């Protein structure tokens, strides 16, 4: 894989992660138990949609085929999305959503911190902006996971179950493939091995404070980064793309 292909693939992945997670959060709008959390969720989802737009716009430019952010977000097939399996998982209950966000954002924040210093100027610029947003998200979501874990017996059990269920999707974040490797080497991109160590430290500290047990590393699911997704993604994309597909070529 050459340098340019890796850069395009990398930008698309960042866009896909932001879009798919943002879309999952959008599904929760108007269904939150507390108004303050309603605001936080909408605000965070807005950050992700904004990040997706920036990454896609850049990916479109890199590709040079005239595709814009909406072409990339709303007119690709399911197997062309390269987001992580973790973030396409259904929302479940509040604890499931919070656990998913903490596990992902503890990774994503490290990834962005590294990208701020990468050799591609545009990626570095977007990452600098996104980093500030995700740092705040992670702090907020971590506080929730701690409250759920160290709250009532019921909330503890639910939070533990959520972490246990999602754990098998965390390995994919650190499993470097060709895109990751080329991007790391050619653009001074993130070292996933090192990020994994930092992630484990962060997550271990949060789980400890939340009085939750850190699951054993066992079999890890993968495939999202290669376009092999869970059944859940297809439905989400069908819903998301409905108007673009039903009215080809229309302006909105």
């Amino acid at each position, binding site marked *: 894989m050459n340098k340019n292909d890796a850069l395009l693939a990398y930008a698309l992945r960042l866009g896909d992660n932001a879009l798919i997670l943002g879309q999952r959060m959008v599904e929760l709008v108007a269904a939150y138990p*507390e108004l303050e959390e*309603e605001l936080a969720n909408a605000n965070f989802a807005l950050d992700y949609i904004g990040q*997706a737009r920036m990454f*896609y716009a850049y990916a479109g430019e890199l590709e040079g085929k005239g595709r814009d952010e909406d072409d990339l977000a709303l007119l690709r097939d399911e197997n062309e999305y390269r987001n992580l399996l973790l973030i396409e998982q259904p929302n479940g209950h509040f604890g499931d959503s919070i656990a998913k966000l903490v596990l992902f954002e503890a990774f994503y924040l490290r990834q962005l911190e590294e990208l701020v210093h990468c050799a591609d100027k545009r990626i570095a610029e977007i990452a600098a902006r996104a980093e500030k947003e995700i740092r705040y998200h992670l702090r907020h979501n971590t506080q929730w996971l701690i*409250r759920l874990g160290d709250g009532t017996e019921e*909330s503890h059990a639910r939070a533990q179950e959520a972490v246990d269920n999602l754990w098998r999707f965390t390995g994919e974040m650190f499993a470097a493939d060709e895109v990751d490797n080329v991007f790391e080497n050619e653009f001074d991109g993130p070292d996933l091995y090192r990020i994994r160590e930092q992630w484990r430290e962060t997550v271990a500290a949060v789980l400890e404070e939340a009085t939750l047990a850190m699951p054993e590393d066992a079999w890890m699911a993968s495939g999202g980064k290669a376009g092999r997704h869970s059944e859940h993604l297809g439905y989400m994309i069908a819903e998301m793309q409905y108007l673009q597909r039903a009215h080809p070529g229309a302006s*909105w």
Partner: protein
Amino acid sequence: MYTQGLDQKDKSAPKREQLETPEQLEAFQARIDAEEKIEAKDWMPEAYRRTLIRQISQHAHSEIIGMQPEGNWLTRAPTLKRKAILLAKIQDEAGHGLYLYSAGETLGVSRDQMVAGLLSGKAKYSSIFNYPTLTWADIGAIGWLVDGAAIMNQIPLCRCSYGPYARAMVRICKEESFHQRQGFDILRVLCAGTAGQKAMAQDALNRWWWPSLMMFGPNDADSKHSAQSMAWKIKRFSNDELRQKFVDVTVPQAEFLGLQVPDDDLVFDQESGHYRFGEIDWQEFIEVIKGNGPCNRQRLGKRRKAHDDGEWVREAARAYGEKQAAKAAA
């Protein structure tokens, strides 16, 4: 906006009210007449307080329930930009709900009490949100018509005699006017688009026009509490005055879009300079207020489910807080 239920009869008559003297009431009215703002700690008649609690909480509930019909198209918004704009709008509405509840709390009622009123079905919210959003054009129609009608109602509320409410409304009005422009822009693009898109816009106007006119509440002749609210300067214009103003402003906008207002009786009256419009189906209005609109059960059901599903989360937060407090005390 969102205060149509204001005209319901008030059944409670607390004892404090019986202790109010004519001198107190006179002095209060003199302050109102002098355009002074009444603040949270000032003396006020019990009926004034109750009216405001009812109006402000209904307004807050409407913001919260109003998130649902728009949220219905959030996952299917046609572009990322439209998705982001709609999301920001819905977030604004949650914010409006939050500070309206805060304004209500200055009158001595807690947010929990107000929310309990909504969930039990006792408190009302604007009837408009009991209509379904069936196509993307409905999101445009809500912004243009529903927020447009809301602004007509709300701008005078910025001068409402009760200070905390008036100040909350200043900010809300700014955001609502932005929302309205966004809604109009959705329809403008649809009307300039394909035949299918334009048909979608016309269909949305057909369904949202009359319910939007109903947002101003009953005709003046049938509006029982309006006179008192006007005297207290909570309300500055009558329902019919505001409705007329809305029609006068909106019909030319529909013409600009190339859409047909679904009213065969609509005609411009040169002499008065106003549009005359057909009779509103008040029976439909009454049915929707009573709970028989297309989405009443769905909207309240979703709110209740969200509240119930969150019970264990709220308990966890409480328990955690207690543990931390105990640790700090030890």
